[in-house]
């Protein structure tokens, strides 16, 4: 089935008139309020994947005992049903259940149940994004809470954040969990521009319309509105459907300048210059011809079906003084906006950061090498930029020595997968973290790394194909992301309480609270 072009167009332009609004945004457009409430939102496929599988043999008499005893909701026999439903495997906590009194396998009067490891799980993920991490991200997006019996804190890459652990003190100073402050200020320049405070030390990274679907983009924006954080347009224009979330959008100005107009710069509170991406420094951007559908091409005002290149670097910026002029330009267009400068992590990243600060940036955004989706070439992802954990510490220390650390906000990205990664990055010296892949996983990404090919994502996340993008609804996407962030905040608060710290700000630069896993110090 191919949808007529007008149908896909409708998805794009259909303006959601906000029912509940918090007043006008910078652009004068009514801003929608999105409720910050966790609601369970199941996987959009009928049988969600779990780490384990429960097999029910034909011996089952449908007595309903399993449904009665399972506190996880794996077995369900609805009122009036003669049969027990197919087990919801993904809720099962696995073999450790055997130690409890409600282990269905043992309790089944007919021994009709068998617990197995799901073989599909072994085919999924990679050491950085392990199957456990993918499943636990799904779990958080579904329930709003961290899973039990899934390793949701770190991956198994043997490097980076996976080698860092917090050293939780045995008796931390008492902290009231309800009073823990997870907000951060993004404007520390005291230059007369407005204060911008976000409720979590996290916001969403730039993904263009073209690289991902409109539901993905708007879902990200709505979740950002709910949590009073930000999402970013990426370099593909500012679809009209984002207007109700202007106050929570970042307009990205990248080297192709696609979709960048005065109008899109003036309506937002933060403008981000993308100089480079940590996943592919020096390579610019590249949208393959297949993903450049007529709708995408219209948004970028380019020719459909042709690959679209964002050059490297900005043709108008070959020096730090050009860079300052570039920032001055954006500030001239929008006198109220903050300016963020996104750079990758070369060996002299510290100098780049200081140069950006003196050029007038409010936010320095370091993008390290672990990030990037399927569209970034492996050779680049794995070999060019400096791992982010090195870059954070290097830049933080340099800014401190320069005496300007408290006048600039340091945001980092590139492989922050979990709430623990976020907290580690902050302990190393960042103020906050930008996430990308974690949001995609919350929407059902399986990390197949086919983002760029053909019509794009088989799960309809990173695709503008009119058929594929209908694989999820906007409300579903929004709620999954709200839930994920809620689960992350719970974990952040929990960690801060265990560390005896009243706020995420107090954690910044406390690398003394981390230790490195090596031969001398293994995991407890």
């Amino acid at each position: 089935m191919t949808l007529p072009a007008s149908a896909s167009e409708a998805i794009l332009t259909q303006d959601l008139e906000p029912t509940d609004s918090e007043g006008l945004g910078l652009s004068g457009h009514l801003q929608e309020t999105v409720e910050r409430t966790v609601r369970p939102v199941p996987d959009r496929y009928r049988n969600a994947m779990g780490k384990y599988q429960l097999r029910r043999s034909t011996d089952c008499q449908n007595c309903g005992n399993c449904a009665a005893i399972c506190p996880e909701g794996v077995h369900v026999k609805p009122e009036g049903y003669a049969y027990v439903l197919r087990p919801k495997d993904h809720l099962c906590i696995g073999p450790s259940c055997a130690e409890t009194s409600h282990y269905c396998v043992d309790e089944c009067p007919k021994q009709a149940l068998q617990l197995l490891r799901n073989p599909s799980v072994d085919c999924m993920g990679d050491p950085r994004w392990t199957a456990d991490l993918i499943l636990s991200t799904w779990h958080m997006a579904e329930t709003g809470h961290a899973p039990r019996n899934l390793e949701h804190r770190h991956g198994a890459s043997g490097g980076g954040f996976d080698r860092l652990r917090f050293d939780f003190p045995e008796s931390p100073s008492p902290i009231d969990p309800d009073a823990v402050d997870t907000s951060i200020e993004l404007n520390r320049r005291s230059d007369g521009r407005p204060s911008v405070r976000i409720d979590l030390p996290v916001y969403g990274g730039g993904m263009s319309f073209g690289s991902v679907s409109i539901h993905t983009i708007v879902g990200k924006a709505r979740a950002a509105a709910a949590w009073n954080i930000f999402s970013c347009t990426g370099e593909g224009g500012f679809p009209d459907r984002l207007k109700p979330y202007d106050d929570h959008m970042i307009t990205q100005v990248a080297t192709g300048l696609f979709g960048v107009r005065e109008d899109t710069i003036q309506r937002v509170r933060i403008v981000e210059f993308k100089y480079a991406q940590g996943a592919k420094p020096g390579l610019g951007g590249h949208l393959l011809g297949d993903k450049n559908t007529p709708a995408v091409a219209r948004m970028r005002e380019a020719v459909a079906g042709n690959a679209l290149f964002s050059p490297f670097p900005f043709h108008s910026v070959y020096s730090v003084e050009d860079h300052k002029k570039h920032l001055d330009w954006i500030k001239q267009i929008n006198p109220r906006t903050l300016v963020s400068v996104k750079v990758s992590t070369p060996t002299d990243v510290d100098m780049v950061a200081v140069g950006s600060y003196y050029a007038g940036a409010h936010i320095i955004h370091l993008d390290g090498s672990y990030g990037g989706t399927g569209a970034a070439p492996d050779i680049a992802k794995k070999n060019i930029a400096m791992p982010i954990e090195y870059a954070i510490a290097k830049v933080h220390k340099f800014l401190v020595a320069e005496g300007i650390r408290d006048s600039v906000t340091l945001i980092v990205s590139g492989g922050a997968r979990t709430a623990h990664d976020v907290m580690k990055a902050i302990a190393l010296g960042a103020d906050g973290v930008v996430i990308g892949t974690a949001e995609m996983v919350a929407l059902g990404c399986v990390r197949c790394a086919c983002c760029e090919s053909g019509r794009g994502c088989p799960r309809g996340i990173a695709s503008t194909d009119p058929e594929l993008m209908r694989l999820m609804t906007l409300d579903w996407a929004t709620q999954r992301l709200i839930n994920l962030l809620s689960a992350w905040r719970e974990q952040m608060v929990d960690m801060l309480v265990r560390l005896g710290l009243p706020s995420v700000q107090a954690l910044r630069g406390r690398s003394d609270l981390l230790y490195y896993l090596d031969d001398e110090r293994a995991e407890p």
Partner: protein
Amino acid sequence: MSHHVERLLSTRSNVYRDGPNAETSKAAEEGGCGVTGFACTVPVGGKFIYEPSVQMQNRGNGKGGGIAASGLVPEQLGIDQATLDSHYLLQIALLDPNAHKEVERDHVLPYFDIATSTRQPHIADHRDIAGLDVRPPDIQRYAVRVKPDVLAKFASENGLSGMSERALEDEFVWRNSFKLNDAFYASLGEKRAFVLSHARDLLVFKMVGYAEQNVQYYQLEDFKAHVWIAHQRYPTKGRVWHPGGAHPFVGVNEALVHNGDFANYHSVSEYLRQRNIRQQFLTDTEVSVQLFDLWDRVYGYPLEYIIEALAPTTELDFDQLPPEKQRIYRQIQATHIHASPDGPWFFIIARSQKEQGRLQLLGITDTAMLRPQVFALSDSGEVQIGLICSEKQAIDATLRSLSREDPRFCATADKYWNARGGSSSDGGAFIFTVAGENGSKRLTCADKFGRPVKVEVAGVRCDVAHPESIPELTTDVEEWLRSGNSNAVFHHVVKHIDGWPAGALRDFCNRVLEAARTPKVMPTAIEAMTLLYDRRYDTGSKRRSTVLQVIDDTLCALFDACPTCGQPGEGQYRRIDWDSRHQILAPAPSERVLIIDAARFPPEGDECDACYQRSAFELGWRRFIVYRLRGQRFTGVGLGPATDGVRFDTYGSSGDYLASGMDGEEIFVHGNAQDQVGQIAKRGKLVIHGDVGQTFMYGAKGADVFVLGNAAGRPLINAVGRPRVVINGTCLDFLAESFMAGEPTEGGGFVILNGIEFDSKGQLVPLAAPYPGSNLFSLASGGAIYIRDPHRRVVEQQLNGGVFSAITDRDWRLIRTYLEENERHFGIKIDDLLTSEGRRLAPEQVYRKVHAVKLAVLAAATEKKS
């Protein structure tokens, strides 16, 4: 390599401290910076390098600024001409004043015969100069020759006997300074002293501050020289800076300033280390001058080959060289490519060539032309001056300040141009040479290949102070003005100016000013003067640059005559300037145009004139005239999308990022425009009565644009949507790379490139090549270029993805509309465009279309398979 060269390089080991030849990495990152320089037939004071330096302050951050002067006045140094000609001026910066005795004991007294030893005067307290936080070094200057016995010993010890005395002495001086720097600078944590310069007839000053602060601190306002260069530095590493890292850097008899950043510093320094040349200050600029010194003084290469080694000729340009040159260049490239700086760079070099009896000022740009650069030449008949600069407005500032104090100078240059890096046409470099006896010095200008650059020097100056009455003038002028006939006024001047006496134009203009006291006449007066300023016409016996100067003065006087907000006055004009900027009021019903005197407004930031334009726009003003622009940026920026009916007219040196983001408004630039103009432009109209700088309309989405002259490098890169642009001149290179602007005949975008210029008589003449660059329309997927090329000079090789095709009727109907408007703006007749060598041709014989074809590398996979 000759025996001497080899010996000379190898025995430099004698000055290196023991220890391995350590690998070096750059000590500091620095960015673009601002560079400027000029060479003049008469010596002028340091205050004239002060002006352009101030203009370019925003290209530095006050963490390093320096100047160099060459062609000095002996009396001001307390020596005679013979001593100035023969002696080295050893100029030592004493960061630690107590180091003086040691430096002198160890590095001066034992080796040199000293003619004079003086301390450079300076103002008592550096803090009296606003913003100068770090105390500049004391400077001790010696005029010296190497003692004959020392030199003889040096020759024999190093096996260099037989080299010419001067070459030996140069090398001795170089090595002695290296040792001094090593002992008192490079090896120390606490820097104590270093050699600023050690040339004949050339001095360098530098400090942790802005370039112009050297002039103030060392009291050089009236210190005269024929050649001046200056540099604003923008270093970004660390909190502690030393003046040693500031530019200029010296070889022996040259000083070099640099704007840019090398990606291959390591490779270049490795090349130098293989030739036994080590680094002390660890900056790009130091290795640059080391390369120059190596190729010039040690290898004895001609200047052309040095420039080729720095900026290799490539692509189509290489193919266009004569075979003999290709053979030589190929060898130069093969030998020295690792030393060729990679990345954006632009050098300005001042050199004193005493043996040849001349001074030189060089500007060299990189092959990819990644840094802005403007050259200018002015010849008033009495004095000649050549200028090189990052920005045109700094050139204008220099000339303005010179002409203010010395009427022999003209405030406007006769010729402004850009170099095309690594090209076969000019080689990307120009050299100004001042030679001849004192009092009768002449300035010549030539490109890399030695081809002279000339300006029309004949003609009467009409920028005289005293008006002379005009014989034929009746009261017509006032009548024309009253009746709104600006064209009649324009044509009257064009017709008669040839026969007028020198002061007549002044008189004419004064009458216009007089008539414009009547508010109703003002719009026509402005219109007429603007026409006279914009259009190219035969100025007959009068020097064009001086005609323009008088017209410009008159326009300023007309604008000045308009009442400021709050002043009593009638008419449709209101004016604000820096002092009255807070008094902007909403326009009264009769008031239509807000005139902004941009002088004294900062070029950017919260107090720049563009901010006041925006507040005026919010108050209801829709028409703006901005004049006395001195490089102020962002004109027409930030007004947002609903700007239909808004119009700007700019006079003076408009700044970077003009019209960047325009969405509906109309902007008319009277004169040249600068860099980054029209970026992301969406809708509206932009008319530039002159040239435009780098990355013009980068990422543009639309707008109708007309450029009278040339665009520099990279115009219309990544443009999408429907930008429609007429460029009457040409571009340096990379026009419309990755152009994605749909189908021109179906509402998409295009560029019409006419490849013409005006001769001194105001007649259209075709350029030698309508498009000289090697890259046209590369990787484009939409839009088209319509190029005027009756002789089919543009070849396939220049395209990278596009194809030629004949223009159709549909194409012609489309572009004719734009050429008609082009005619209205600039007076360039379609008939003239369609005429080649006296023959009127059909459109398809004159214009060619370059359009996109589907490239395999760009196409969708599904299409590739089919």
